[in-house]
């Protein structure tokens, strides 16, 4: 078991190093000149050269790479060339908003996807199964940015039930962060009106973000349950007089949950990356919106920072799933 864990962690470390290399290469193949961008639109040649020296862009590439790696190791993501602010500070400020959104969307995806998958498998080829199938295929095909606009139109403009965009009202003084997750902070403080306000802002983006995840959890869980319910051990359990409820919830679902877990791990990272679209539609002040506004301005450092954070999330989620797999499925430990 220890060997399995170490191997997985080692693999994740290698991937992380690869990701660092990849972002460095991307930043250096760029045809536009970062020094010129830093010096501003009206800068003369000497000012550009000065900016080049200031940002270390005149050094040979291996030296720049070494500096990049040591900076990252100290949590220094560099400076935004457009605003001059530290990217690390910006990321720390924007990440909690994204994290809160992704956690809520993932909860929606799992808490709805798994039961719906079980029900569709139990009523295979019945009306419920057909409805969830259409729902699941739609969930993957709907453009999230467009779906978000439609929900804004329906719930904010026409019904007037929810706010259109943002994280809290502009008139609300944001409370001092404890965790930075507004829902959690307000629960801890017991401030229910603020909790309700934060919930009304987060619910639409969370639904949009969770839809593809919900759809794929539903489909995987359904096909795994169909498979599991056909197994000999289910027949054996039934013959032994185990109650149907117990057969479904314990014998079949436990086995179906393993592949579902793998999908959850993958989806965590993908969700982080879809926040780019969802946050743009809902003006949600997270790392996705930060990446988009920086990318449009041609400002690499923030984009690379977000890429690294999303990649790190993707890797850690997959690592956790791998380790859980090792715990839940003893066959893997020996492999």
């Amino acid at each position, binding site marked *: 078991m220890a060997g399995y864990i170490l191997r997985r962690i080692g693999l994740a470390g290698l991937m992380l190093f690869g990701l660092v290399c990849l972002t460095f290469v991307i930043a250096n193949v760029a045809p536009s000149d970062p020094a010129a961008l830093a010096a501003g639109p009206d800068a003369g040649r000497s000012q550009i050269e000065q900016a080049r020296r200031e940002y270390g862009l005149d050094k040979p590439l291996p030296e720049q790479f070494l500096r990049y790696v040591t900076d990252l190791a100290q949590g220094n993501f560099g400076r935004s060339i457009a605003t001059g602010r530290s990217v690390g500070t910006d990321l720390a400020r924007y990440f909690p908003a994204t994290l809160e959104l992704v956690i809520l969307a993932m909860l929606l995806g799992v808490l709805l996807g798994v039961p719906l998958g079980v029900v569709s498998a139990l009523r295979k080829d019945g009306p419920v199964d057909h409805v969830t199938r259409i729902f699941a295929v739609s969930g993957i095909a709907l453009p999230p940015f467009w779906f978000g606009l439609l929900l804004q139109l329906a719930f904010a403009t026409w019904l007037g039930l929810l706010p259109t965009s943002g994280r809290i009202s502009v008139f609300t003084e944001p409370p001092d962060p404890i965790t930075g997750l507004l829902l959690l902070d307000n629960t801890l403080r017991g401030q229910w009106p603020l909790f309700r306000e934060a919930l009304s802002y987060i619910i639409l983006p969370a639904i949009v973000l969770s839809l593809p995840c919900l759809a794929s959890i539903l489909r*995987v869980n359904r096909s795994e349950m169909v498979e599991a319910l056909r197994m000999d051990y289910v027949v054996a359990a039934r013959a032994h007089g185990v109650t149907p409820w117990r057969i479904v919830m314990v014998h079949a679902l436990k086995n179906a949950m393993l592949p579902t877990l793998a999908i959850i791990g993958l989806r965590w990272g993908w969700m982080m990356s879809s926040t780019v679209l969802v946050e743009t539609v809902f003006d949600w002040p997270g790392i996705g919106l930060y990446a988009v506004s920086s990318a449009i301005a041609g400002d690499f450092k923030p984009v690379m920072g977000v890429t690294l954070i999303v990649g790190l999330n993707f890797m850690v989620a997959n690592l956790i799933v791998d380790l859980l797999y090792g715990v839940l499925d003893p066959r893997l430990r020996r492999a």
Partner: protein
Amino acid sequence: MSAIAEETVAAPPRRRLRLALWLLTRSFSSMLGLFLVTAIVALALLGPWIVPYPDDVQGGINLANKLQPPSFAHWLGTDEVGNDILTRVIIGARISLLVGIGITVAAAIIGVPLGILAGLAGGRLREVIMRFTDLFLSVPGLVLAIALVAALGPGIVNAMIALILVWWPGYVRLAEAKALSIRDEAYIEAARVAGASRARILRRHVLPNSISPLIVKMSMDIGQAILAVASLGFIGLGAKPPTPEWGAMISIARGYMPDWWWYAVAPGVFIYLAVLGFNLLGDGLRDILDPRSNRG
């Protein structure tokens, strides 16, 4: 189902094709997918000849006519400079389909040979190819594509290049897994013993036997690539207005929400139906061609 599928694999080509087609027509969702894909392809091919206002394709300016609601003259209304939205959405089908197919085919052309090579060669070469592939899979596609577009500069061509760079590793994975499993099959051994050259084994035995999962993946990926290009267009890193690309159109239309909401609805419906069509078709093809890999 699986017994029929086994026969699909074993029967001679023409009967196999007939059986596959028959199976396809029996599934409602596959037929819906086929219908949607055919419709989108037809719109893309016939676009310039069937649009009601051919002058609006390039983005003519007719401000007297701007932002009109759907009517008999303009079925889907008009946009902010008075162009007919239906016309622009139909022409958008051409762009999206071309870009979607282009990205998928290019990714397959890069990925499949590398994957087969890795699977058959084994050893150090395989290790190098697969680690390099893993590098690109270490971060979710959309974010990587944005990072690449940020470096290359916005625009539809750069968006395509970025998405090809994001997409090819999937094909390496697929082709490598397939080549690995085929390598140990008895018929490959037999061909080798009979003196077939490496190239011949590749062409006659490995490629035809890995084609089904490839077709399925490509069908799914065309849909996903259309969605990805529209996404980049929406956030302002893909096609630039006034190019009638669906995502870019929605990005403009967003500024006219909620008063002129129908402007944003039309391109979105087209994206949805196009992606849905390719997904359903791919799903149906998988049930027939590659039934054992039926996973969400």
